[in-house]
């Protein structure tokens, strides 16, 4: 298989404009003849569904929550980047492009990233027009802050609830189209199969979560905007329902999965408090703007109260190791640094898996009311979860799985290798390379949905001779049967373990063998253990209830089953990528504790093709070339 990214020719800065001109258009009167399925109603899905309906396409949109407003995007706290240069501090499209390519450790496509930086500007305009209440200055203009290792202030925010406000903007745009009858919305509905006819994506099979009824939906194109797969680690900052099911099942139907090993571990999360833990909570990275990260210099001091440790006995290790970025060092780097000091035995709190994030200096400098105004809701959340007051003692934080840069492979048009299957948002692999910068996921999701797909999908429709498929086609019958058979099988095992206990075990295994540090040895071990655990699942899981009504146990077991297959692919990708880059840290490939890339052999995207049960997948390569940005060692020292 040859993976052609279809990157337009011409100078980087003109590619997107030229491509928009070159793409074929669908006549306005013909748009209503095309049916589009959008799976997912997060930032990417809701913005796409609304925009496509506004253009005149017939849209059906699906999500598993009871309302599209509850997609995981709602939880994003910190902000969204855009190259507006409102602060006059030297930002530009080129700088955002450059920072993103470098931040991604030179493992993203230049052309995609440049386009992302270009359209970032329109996103903010769009959201403001929708009434999104972004933070403002007294003059009435928009406020910005610096975020996640950026040296310019280009992050727009709405208190600590930016994702919520952006999602509500997109949800409201979507709601308007639903009200107008242009989008048919299917909440509490889970996509369980992709239907491919003659190599083209032509529909999906879904299960109604309330009554278990399985139905088919045919369309001229299928858009997956189903989010990331961080929950393969069980504990992550993702919502409980986040899963790999939609993308993994599309993968099994032929869509290649790119760079699954690129996962992001976020440095500022609340540490685990016990075995009951069901998820981890992120403390927004914006806290690092004013908080200082430290651990005691000596192991012996770790048990002492932080206040009793004088400054001279504290190790502000980020400031020490990365003087120019200090506490704002990028996520992957800050996470590894935390792991390192904890591995040395200098961690604090239960299990010694924590570091301090201290606001004492900020409070002294800015006063408590100012700190409260900036971060009050985060301090409140911290107190609710831990019972500790972070105005009086430092927060304890530890890294946790947060975001997945890998995803289904897409070309420049956001189309997968299966024609007619488009993939948006966190579900695709496109723009962040091996590490995503803070406040760039919201930007990417909305760029994909508002400003890229609406153009590229039209081009697909206009360039293909469309064959109409209905749900009577045998492929739909086959897919429905696959779904029903899987359900029957899950209910029939009647074993002795809960799906949660197996998921927890998988997560622990992934975290230990394929987390912040990965080695040939650990990955080889994981590749042996995962199939055994999968075996255990299919012979010993207990799924209660029946198919014909709301059955959360059954839904969840289906997702765990997919994680048990997908985890293996993730580890295989990590084993094959014999270099360190961004969030992928192979202990064999390092220089003074930092990532050591191997550009000669790994400057490429790895996209895996499914070959059938029990067979190893095939690894395809899309070479990455860098014309605009010079490949360099990423240094934040």
């Amino acid at each position, binding site marked *: 298989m040859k993976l052609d990214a279809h990157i337009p020719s011409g100078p980087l800065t003109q590619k997107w404009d030229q491509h928009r001109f070159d793409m074929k258009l669908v006549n306005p009167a013909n748009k209503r003849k095309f049916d589009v399925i959008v799976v997912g109603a997060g930032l990417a899905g809701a913005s796409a569904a609304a925009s496509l309906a506004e253009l005149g396409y017939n849209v059906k949109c699906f999500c598993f929550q009871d309302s599209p407003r509850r997609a995981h995007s709602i939880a994003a706290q910190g902000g969204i980047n855009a190259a507006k240069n409102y602060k006059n501090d030297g930002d530009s499209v080129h700088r955002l492009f450059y920072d993103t390519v470098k931040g991604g450790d030179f493992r993203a496509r230049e052309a995609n990233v440049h386009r992302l930086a270009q359209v970032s500007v329109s996103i903010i305009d769009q959201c403001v027009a929708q009434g999104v209440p972004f933070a*403002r200055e007294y003059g009435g203009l928009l406020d910005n802050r610096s975020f996640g290792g950026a040296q310019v202030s280009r992050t727009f925010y709405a208190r600590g609830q930016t994702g919520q406000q952006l999602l509500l903007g997109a949800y*409201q745009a979507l*709601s308007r189209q639903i*009200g107008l009858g242009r989008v048919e919305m299917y*909440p509490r509905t889970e996509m369980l199969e992709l239907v491919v006819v003659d190599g083209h994506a032509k529909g999906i099979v879904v299960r109604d979560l309330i009554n278990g009824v399985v139905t088919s939906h045919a369309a001229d194109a299928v858009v997956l905007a189903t989010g990331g797969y961080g929950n393969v680690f069980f504990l992550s900052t993702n*919502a409980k329902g986040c899963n790999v099911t939609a993308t993994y099942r599309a993968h099994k139907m032929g869509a290649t999965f790119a760079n699954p090993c690129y996962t992001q571990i976020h440095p500022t999360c609340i540490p685990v408090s016990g075995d009951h833990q069901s998820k981890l909570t992120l403390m927004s990275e914006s806290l690092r703007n004013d908080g200082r990260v430290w651990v005691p210099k000596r192991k012996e001091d770790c048990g002492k109260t932080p206040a009793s440790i004088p400054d001279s006995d504290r190790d502000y290790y980020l400031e020490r190791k990365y003087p120019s970025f200090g506490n704002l060092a990028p996520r992957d780097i800050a996470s590894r640094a935390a792991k390192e000091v904890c591995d040395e035995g200098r961690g604090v709190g239960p299990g010694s898996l924590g570091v301090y994030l201290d606001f004492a200096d900020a409070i002294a400098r800015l006063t408590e009311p100012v700190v409260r105004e900036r971060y009050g809701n985060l301090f409140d959340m911290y107190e609710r979860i831990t019972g500790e007051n972070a105005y009086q003692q430092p927060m304890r934080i530890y890294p946790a799985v947060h975001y997945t840069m890998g995803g289904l492979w897409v070309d420049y048009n956001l189309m997968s290798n299966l024609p007619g299957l488009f993939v948006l948002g966190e579900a695709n692999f496109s723009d962040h390379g091996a590490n995503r910068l803070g406040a760039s996921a919201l930007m990417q999701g909305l760029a994909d949905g508002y400003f890229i797909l609406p153009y590229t999908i039209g081009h697909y429709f206009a360039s293909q001779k469309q064959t109409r498929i209905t749900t009577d086609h045998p492929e739909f019958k086959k897919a429905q049967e696959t779904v029903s058979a899987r359900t029957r099988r899950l209910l029939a095992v009647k074993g002795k373990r809960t799906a949660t206990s197996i998921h927890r075990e998988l997560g622990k295994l992934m975290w230990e063998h394929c987390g912040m540090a990965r080695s040939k040895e650990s990955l080889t071990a994981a590749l042996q253990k995962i199939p055994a655990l999968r075996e255990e699942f299919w012979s010993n899981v207990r799924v*209660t209830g029946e198919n014909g009504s709301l059955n959360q146990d059954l839904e969840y077991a289906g997702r765990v089953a997919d994680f048990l297959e997908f985890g293996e692919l993730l580890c295989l990708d990590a084993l094959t990528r014999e270099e360190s880059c961004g969030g992928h840290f192979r202990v064999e490939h390092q220089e003074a504790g930092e990532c050591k890339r191997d550009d000669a052999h790994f400057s490429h995207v790895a996209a895996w093709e499914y070959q059938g049960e029990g067979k190893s997948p095939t690894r395809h390569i899309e070479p990455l070339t860098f014309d605009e940005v010079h490949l360099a060692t990423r240094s934040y020292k």
Partner: protein
Amino acid sequence: MNLTLKIWRQKDAKDIGGFETHEVREVNPDMSFLEMLDVVNEGLILRGIEPIAFDSDCREGICGACSLVINGTAHGGHKATTACQLHMRKFSDGETITVEPWRARAFPMVKDLVCDRSAFDRIIQAGGFVSVSTGGVPDANAIPVAKEDSDQAMDAAQCIGCGACVAACKNASAMLFVAAKVSHLALMPQGKVERERRALNMVAQMDTEGFGACSVTGSCEAVCPKEIRLDFIARLNREYGRALLHRGGG
């Protein structure tokens, strides 16, 4: 700590339902309320009994999915706290805790602790938006917005659509929810253009859905996890009155 749970179980919308008692041992005070329910559920599954159905997703107090009446109060009665953010350290050893779903005519029961809140979505579909399509909008800084207005709009926009306000109201009124959206958009210049149409349409849909009338007792404000203020209801009434005056009819 050890606890006794009295939990509402109801097979489906048609079932009459009733309380079921569960003894829960060795609860870790650092658990969230939902994690405690997870533990109960795992025990049930191992005994081949269907787990207690409840909605949750983010478990961070922002998605609005969780919806439990705990000891008679929506979300459990701790200031600005959703059920998912409520931690077991707030309860005492040996306590008996009752857990029920939201109950309101406009939120039909689905199963156990799960109800159907799609009425809220339909209210938004009726007018809770600014009618702009993608593209062709002015530069974000073209229209300055006073910080005070934008801050107030944000206070209202924080609503997570959980429905606790309805569950807490003796009339099962949705006024606080509707007031939050109407106020958010009416406070922003971008939303002002359609303010009248919006207020009329959203209120009409609210009535169609079967939510009760508002008698301003404030029980909604008391349980609202996002501290949406009662004065937004006053603003909604003003917006609605203004719309009636200008447009006539309801």
